[in-house]
């Protein structure tokens, strides 16, 4: 088993935290995981890429070489990282994003991640947790309880309820497969 997951968005959307949670969940499930990120000097608004490699074997190189999965939370991230993808890569896009050209052979899943966080959960900043739930729903990395354990490692006390709601709303998302 090996997953090479790339998450992309703009700084402040929480894609790095989402990647850390996925890596934590993998380690809690007894797998190996490496997590890394690339971002510019600015704290908010710049392009941000985070990566997780999950394997039941020793991970030699810790960064993504051939993504098995790509999440893009904004148009720029989708346009940048959807280029030259292997046809096996599963692509998850927020519904607000126009599907980039050239993904004819890929599985593309369009989900209302940002809208779900804003409208159903009631807090736009939970979009990354909604995304984590949606990703696990597609990749089946671990059971939902383990995933929530991983989320709880990273959230302030008193926010468990809203994060659990975000996670379950994410897990429930069934988008239109293109």
């Amino acid at each position, binding site marked *: 088993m090996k997953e090479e997951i790339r998450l992309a968005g703009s700084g402040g959307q929480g894609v790095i935290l989402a990647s850390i949670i996925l890596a934590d969940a993998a380690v809690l499930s007894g797998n190996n995981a490496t997590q890394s*990120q*690339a971002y510019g000097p600015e704290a908010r608004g710049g392009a941000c890429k985070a990566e997780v490699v999950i394997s039941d074997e020793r991970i*030699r190189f*810790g960064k993504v070489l051939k993504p098995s999965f790509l999440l893009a939370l904004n148009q720029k991230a989708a346009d940048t990282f959807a280029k030259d993808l292997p046809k096996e890569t599963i692509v998850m896009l927020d519904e607000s994003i126009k599907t980039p050209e050239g993904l004819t052979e890929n599985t593309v899943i369009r989900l209302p991640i940002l809208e779900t966080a804003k409208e159903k959960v009631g807090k736009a900043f939970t979009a990354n947790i909604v995304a984590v739930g949606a990703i696990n729903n597609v990749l089946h990395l671990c059971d939902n309880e383990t995933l929530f354990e991983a989320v709880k490692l990273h959230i302030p006390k008193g926010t468990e309820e809203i994060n659990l709601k975000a996670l379950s709303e994410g897990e429930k998302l069934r988008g239109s497969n293109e």
Partner: protein
Amino acid sequence: MTKVLMQGNEACVKGAIAAGMRFFAGYPITPSTEIAEGSAVELPKVGGKFIQMEDELASMAAVIGASAAGVKSMTATSGPGFSLKQENIGYASEAEIPCVIVDVQRTGPSTGMATSPSQGDVMQARWGTHGDHPIIALSPSSVEETYRLVIRAFNLSEKYMTPVIFLMDEIIGHMREGVEISNDIEVIDRKMPSEDQKENYRPYDCADGELVPVLAPMGKGFYYNITGLLHGGDGFPTNDNEVTGRQVLCLMKKIEDNRADICQSESQDMDDAEIAIVCYGGTARSADEAIFQLREKGIKVGMFRPITIWPFPEEDFLKATKNVKKILVVEHNYGQILLEVQRLAKNLPVEFLGCINGKTISPDEIIAKVEEL
């Protein structure tokens, strides 16, 4: 033992505290900032002290002061701050004050690229401060090794009464990995003089072949001097050339004569290798994957990885590369350890793959380079 997900910088703090670090002074800088943050959180829990100083010069001075008072001390920085610390690193070397200086290397000269990886400070670690002086530098290749190796950095610094450079890079500093943190570790503390040595205390007399001084913590009633000037046995400056010559020679030889103890390296797939890749730190992870794929294609390639960067593990290198036909040095700079390898591998062709634009060298680039050799 269960694994936990941990960042390289976080593992550095955990290892340092396990080694006995009880003082940290620093000035935060990407990509080392998490080491200052983590020390600020963790040190008060074990009765230690964290100070954010006004700049890197002051933080290096504070680290030397705390260590002179007998407390294991560390600072962490990146290239721009490492430059500023050099004057006081020289002081620690000459005054023989143990301390650990973490440099999480980032790209470029000057302020460079804050969030991009590099190994451009290898020669600065060796010769960044002026004058003939010894240095120890260690470089980890994984988060787990960061934990173990920073403990070794403290142990070597205490054993040989010397500053130790912990040469990390952005790749490992910012990467998170599942690690097993072992409590089964060896911790070395500096030797202490006995009370009966208080009379006529001359800690810097490297008499009877004893090269490492036994320094009493300041404030314990032992009368001696600490200075960056060349000094006699009592630590006070002197212009007596015989004394100063002996003092600097002792300084050099305490590291030189103990290379076998200090130098560590790792050889991977070297038994039948025709091509040896020499690399270290985060770059070794790219080589690790490249070697795996090249071996599947039947290419006999292995890796020699210095873990102790300075002094360079010469004997290990010569032994590991005895039967190879070619050497490829891979590092995130314009060629620094390359110079050591060229010096040692006299009759072998030495090729180079470097990177200076802030990217991470990918396994594919190494594979392509090996295939064209």
